[in-house]
């Protein structure tokens, strides 16, 4: 076989290998980016789940805790405010803040409900309390999963050979979900006064 043909074959094989690698890397990056988007929308799903549970809770509590009008109003208001904030990357901090207000209002509601034995004995209330507590956890775990997904995406975006593809096709940086101010990181204060 002439040398020219050998070289041509080697070059051809190399080109095919590189193209295959590039396609696979591109697809992997796309997959991880979609994972991030999915994970982000999962947070919204869980937040919405909480919005949907609250009216039910308020109705149940109303029947028993007749003197807690203010606390109930606060929950309803915090819920409305949280719904009103758009949920996208731009308003992440604002949204987190509103959600935290809602968490605080809910904690106060559960705190005062301790004073009503009839309410505590109500099956529906117990169920709602479990669902809301679980939803708090779900929100937390959904955020954790989002951060894990962003971490995986960022890693595959930045490691060496893949970073070439990422640069060529504009795989931009994704932000982690963080609670910026330390105040937000702390638990909402529950006042028993």
């Amino acid at each position: 076989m002439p040398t020219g043909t050998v070289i041509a074959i080697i070059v051809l094989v190399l080109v095919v290998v590189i193209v295959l690698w590039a396609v696979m890397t591109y697809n992997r990056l796309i997959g991880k980016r979609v994972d991030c988007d999915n994970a982000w929308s999962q947070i919204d799903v869980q937040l919405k789940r909480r919005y949907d549970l609250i009216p039910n809770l308020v109705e149940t509590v109303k029947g028993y805790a007749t003197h807690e009008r203010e606390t109930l109003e606060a929950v309803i208001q915090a819920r409305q405010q949280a719904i009103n904030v758009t949920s996208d990357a731009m308003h992440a901090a604002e949204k987190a803040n509103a959600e935290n207000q809602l968490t605080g209002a809910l904690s106060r509601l559960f705190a005062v409900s301790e004073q009503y034995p009839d309410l505590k004995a109500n099956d529906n209330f117990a169920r709602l309390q479990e669902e809301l507590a679980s939803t708090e956890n779900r929100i937390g775990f959904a955020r954790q999963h989002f951060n894990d997904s962003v971490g995986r995406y960022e890693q595959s975006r930045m490691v060496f050979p893949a970073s070439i593809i990422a640069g060529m096709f504009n795989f931009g940086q994704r932000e982690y979900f963080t609670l910026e101010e330390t105040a937000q990181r702390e638990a909402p204060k529950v006042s028993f006064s």
Partner: protein
Amino acid sequence: MSNTGSNDPLGPIRGPKGEQGPIPVPGEGKPLPIPGIPGMPGSQGAGEKPQKPRPAQRPARKPGPGESDSAFDQRVRERIKAYPGTITYNDLIRKSKRDSAILIVLMILLAAVFGASIGVIVSVVFGHAGDYAHSYMTGTTHRPADPKFDTATGGSSFDVFGSIAPILPAMLIGGLVGLLVGGGASVWSFYGGANAILRMTHARRISKDDDPVLFNVCEEMAIAGGLPMPKIYIIDDDSLNAFATGRDPEHGVVAITRGLRAKLTRDELQGVMAHELAHIRHYDIRFSMLMATMVGLIVIVSDGFLRAMFYSGAGHRGGARVSTPGGGGGGGGRGGGAAIAVIFVIAIILAILSPIIARLLQMAYSRQREYLADAGAVELTRNPQGLASALSTLACDRAPQKETANRGTAHMYIVNPLKKMRSSGQRKSSAFSSHPPIDDRIARLLALLR
């Protein structure tokens, strides 16, 4: 099913849940003193850890009958020291993944070697190659009865490859068949196996209304892992255990015994569910079924062929072919006979040893996957304490789960359902046990808390 157990099912949830979101905040994970282990140095190796452990709601060890607490704690404490202070669940996950990948490769190699050995045995005992070997062993020269065979090898029988040429095709075919049959059986077991275990354990599927807390805990973990919600089954057994099955996350099934469900707090339940979901997430069911199928095949085939060799082989030897006098085999026949005889003996040894080696590999693999699922559970919960505490509850339970578990399904459970911890039994880590020693598992988890 209602919430079993004496404690209020909503009890554990009213704890200070809101203040410890599971969001990882790097650098925030302050080392905690470990409550279950008295005198445990709580503040060392405060390296940056991706998890933020929540404070424990219960000590890691509950007093159990038999063994004294201090001895168990002492052992756990000793084992914790074996792990570096800065270890994270990611390190543990990487280590287990690497080790189990090596074990899978070894298993595939074993299947190929075993297939080759069987090929040799078949060709020697049932084929014409045996004439060469026998001629060497008896010191006489035989000529194969089949002329076709003679022409195929006659010319090249002086070099080494030529001398074993009669058994070479059988060796290769055997190796290939070993791989193909193993692969085919594994594929078959994927699709059929998942439901078999559920039937065997009399597990019964429950819906959310039967046990909302269990469902919620499980769904929280599914969210943390980005997995679809698995089906949940309850095993009507008072012993303490849980398992996961299903060939991929879309077909995930998590089962827990009634006894364990009733005994755990919410945090512990979360740890157990996270462990099971980690099995699903890592496709452990698929791989352990593959391993089990390969081991099963090797055992059956080895048993069958060794028997066949002894009975029919013995008759064969005494039969017509051995006494066939050969005229012109010559030196080539003799040299080939020596090589074939040696390979034949090695093949028999390998065929005898293969089932044992296969089982050793399978068990080593199973232990690695348990470690991996433990580390993967921490990846989901970020709370090593919950699972550690659940494991020590499991360690105390000594009633073996006889009715709903057997050796075939033992490896699927969170702890071995047949061999429960005896006063000192669990300590020794046998190469044949499907699960790592429970104190080492707890130690690994607690090492993450430092």
